[in-house]
C-alpha cells in the first residue's frame, strides 16, 4: 500500500503521481534482476532525467524543478521504495549539483548546471579517502596549481557512481592548512589522468557502482574551482547536511517497502488455520514496524520544512539521518522475521532490503558521527 502523504499543493500531488507511475511501471519490475546481476541502471536514470526528476530542488532558471525539499524528498522516498539503488543514486546526483548551485559563480552555473539538472548527465560526489572517512579533513588528494590548471594526484574512495558518472564534485587539498586547506573541483569524467578502480564487491546496493577514483596527474582547468580555495570543507559539510536528508528519505522508503511486503505476506500466509497477521505476536511486530516508518517520515519532513523556511536544520538533519536509517535497519530485519524461512531466501525481496539497509547507518556520516553532530549542536 503506498504511503499516505500530506502534500502542500496539487502540483506536488501531480509530481508524486508521476513518480509513482514511473516507479511502479519502470523501476520496481526490473530492480531485483539488476541487483542480482550487479547491473547499473543508467537507462533508468535517463528516464528520470527526461521526466524532470534529476533536478527537482534546484532553480527553474537552470532547468530545475524549483520544488521544496519537503516535496523533493518524498519523490526520493517513492523512488527508494521501488528501488533503493535508484533512490540513493538520485540523492547522490542531487548532492553532486549542490556545490555548483550554492557556491558557483553565475558564469559557472550557467555553463554547467543546465546539463547537470537537465537529466542527460549523472553526477558523483567525491569526499572520502581510504584513511579519511569520518575524519574528512584528513584528506590528502592534492591539487597543485600549474598555469591555468590544477594538477591532481591521489585516490578518492567509496565513490557512488564511480566510473559511470559524467562529473565528480571532488574535494581536494590545495594547502596544508588542515580543514581550511581543502577546495572543491568540478571534475569532468573525461579528464585525462582520471580513472576508476574495479567496483567494490558490496553486501547490498549491488546495482549501484561504488569505486575508488584515481587521479594520476589529472589536469583540471582552474575555472572548475567551485567557491574560493580553502572553502572545500565548508562546502562539503554544507552539502552533507542536505544530503543526509536525502538518505533519511531513502531509508524511510526502504522501510516502507519492507513493511508493505511483510503486511502483504502476513495477510495471505496461514498457519494454525488463520492468516498469521491475526496472531498477536506478529500484530505487535507489524505495528511497531509501521510506527517506525511513520515516525521516520515525520522526522525527515520536519527537518525538510525547516530547511525550506530558511531555518537552521543541521541538528534536525542529523537526527533524521540517525532515526530513519536505524528505523530502516530494524524494519527490514523484522520484515525478514515476518516472512520466516521465505524471507531468508532470494525468492523474496526482504533479505535484499535488509542488506541494503545496513549501509545507510554507515555512509553520509556514520550514525556515530550523527550523534557527534547532534551533541555539538546541543553544546552550542
Amino acid at each position, binding site marked *: 500500500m503506498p504511503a499516505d502523504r500530506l502534500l502542500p499543493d496539487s502540483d506536488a500531488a501531480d*509530481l508524486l503521481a*508521476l513518480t509513482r507511475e*514511473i516507479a511502479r511501471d519502470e523501476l520496481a519490475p526490473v530492480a531485483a534482476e539488476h541487483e542480482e546481476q550487479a547491473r547499473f541502471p543508467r537507462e533508468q536514470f535517463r528516464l528520470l532525467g*527526461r*521526466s*524532470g526528476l534529476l533536478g527537482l530542488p534546484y532553480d527553474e532558471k537552470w532547468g530545475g524543478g524549483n520544488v521544496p525539499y519537503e516535496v523533493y524528498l518524498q519523490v526520493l522516498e517513492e523512488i527508494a521504495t521501488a528501488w533503493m539503488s535508484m533512490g540513493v543514486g538520485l540523492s547522490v546526483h542531487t548532492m553532486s549539483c549542490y556545490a555548483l548551485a550554492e557556491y558557483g559563480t553565475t558564469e559557472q552555473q550557467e555553463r554547467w548546471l543546465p546539463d547537470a539538472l537537465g537529466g542527460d548527465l549523472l553526477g558523483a560526489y567525491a569526499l572520502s579517502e581510504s584513511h579519511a572517512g569520518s575524519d574528512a579533513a584528513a584528506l590528502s588528494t592534492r591539487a597543485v596549481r600549474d598555469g591555468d590548471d590544477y594538477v591532481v594526484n591521489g585516490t578518492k574512495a567509496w565513490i557512488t557512481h564511480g566510473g559511470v558518472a559524467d562529473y565528480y564534485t571532488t574535494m581536494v587539498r590545495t594547502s596544508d592548512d588542515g580543514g581550511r586547506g581543502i577546495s572543491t573541483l568540478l571534475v569532468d569524467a573525461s579528464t585525462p589522468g582520471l580513472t576508476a578502480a574495479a567496483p567494490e564487491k558490496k553486501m547490498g546496493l549491488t546495482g549501484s557502482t561504488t569505486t575508488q577514483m584515481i587521479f594520476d596527474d589529472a589536469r583540471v582547468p582552474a575555472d572548475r574551482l567551485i567557491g574560493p580555495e580553502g572553502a572545500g570543507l565548508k562546502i562539503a559539510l554544507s552539502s552533507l547536511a542536505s544530503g543526509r536528508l536525502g538518505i533519511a528519505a531513502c531509508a524511510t522508503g526502504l522501510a516502507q517497502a519492507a513493511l508493505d511486503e511483510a503486511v502483504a505476506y502476513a495477510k495471505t500466509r496461514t498457519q494454525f488455520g488463520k492468516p498469521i497477521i491475526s496472531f498477536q505476536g506478529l500484530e505487535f511486530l507489524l505495528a511497531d514496524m509501521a510506527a517506525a516508518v511513520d515516525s521516520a517520515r515525520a522526522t525527515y519532513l520536519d527537518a525538510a520544512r525547516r530547511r525550506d523556511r530558511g531555518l537552521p536544520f543541521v541538528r534536525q538533519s542529523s537526527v533524521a539521518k540517525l532515526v530513519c536509517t536505524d528505523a530502516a535497519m530494524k524494519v527490514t530485519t523484522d520484515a525478514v522475521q515476518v516472512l520466516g524461512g521465505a524471507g531468508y531466501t532470494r525468492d523474496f525481496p526482504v533479505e535484499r532490503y535488509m542488506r541494503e539497509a545496513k549501509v545507510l547507518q554507515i555512509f553520509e556520516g556514520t550514525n556515530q558521527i550523527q550523534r557527534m553532530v547532534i551533541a555539538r549542536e546541543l553544546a552550542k
Partner: protein
Amino acid sequence: MPNIVVLVKQVPDTYSERKLSDGDKTLDRDSADAVLDEINERAVEEALLIKEASEGEVTVLSVGPDRATEAIRKALSMGADKAIHVSDAALHGADVIQTAKVLAAAIGKVDGVDLVIAGNESTDGVAGAVPAILAELLGYPQLTHARKVTVEGSAIKVERETSDGITHLEANLPAVVSVGEKINEPRYPSFKGIMAAKKKPVETLTVADLGLSADEVGLASAWTQVLEASPKPPRQAGQKVADEGDGGVKVAEYLVSQKLI
C-alpha cells in the same frame, strides 16, 4: 504542418477491479481508478512524433464525464497543445454510433483538420468500432489498426498488421487513423510538462453546443444496450499431466485439443 486531432478516453484502470452499475449496466465509474486509456497514450505519442517531425498542432478530443479532464490533462502534459472536452449528462450510456456522431460534430469545430488519430479499441468497451464509424461520418478515408504511420506532405501511409501479413494502406489527408499496441512506446510526461498542461486551453462543450439534440444521444436512444452482466468465473485449477515418458506427447495432444497448435 499537419493539424492533428487525437481522440482520448478515460477508462477504469486495468489494475483495479472493474464493474458495471447494478441499475442500467453502464460502467460504474466510482468503483475503479480512472486513467487515460493506454492505447490512447500511444495515439497521443504518435501525434506528437508527427508534430515533432513536421510541426503542426495537436488537439486532444475527449467525450466523457467531468472527471475525464484528468485524462485530458495527462495527454496535454505529454505535449499536446490544446483540448476539447464534450461533457453532458445526456451522453450517459451512449453507444459507439452516438459517440462517433458527437466526435464528428466536435471535430467539425476544429479548423482545417488534417489527421484524426485514435486508439483501435478501448480497454473498457472494447467495441473497436468508433474510428471506422467516425471516418464514415466525416467522409474521410479510414486507415485502421496501424502499426506504423508515415505522413508525407498531403499523403499518409500506414502499415496494418493482420494474421495474413502486413497490409500497406495509402490515402490523402484528411484521414482517420487508428493505432494498435505495436505503434510506439508512449513517453512519460515530464514534471515541466505537467506544470505547462495546467495552462493549456481546454474548451468544454455540451451536446447542444455541437448542434445535436439530447434525445439523439445517451442510453434511451442507443442502438445497443447491455442487458446482462456476470462476473468473471473464478480461475479453475489447471490440468495436471503426469509424465510417464510420454509427457511431451500428452502436452501436445492437449494443445491440439484446445486448437492451440
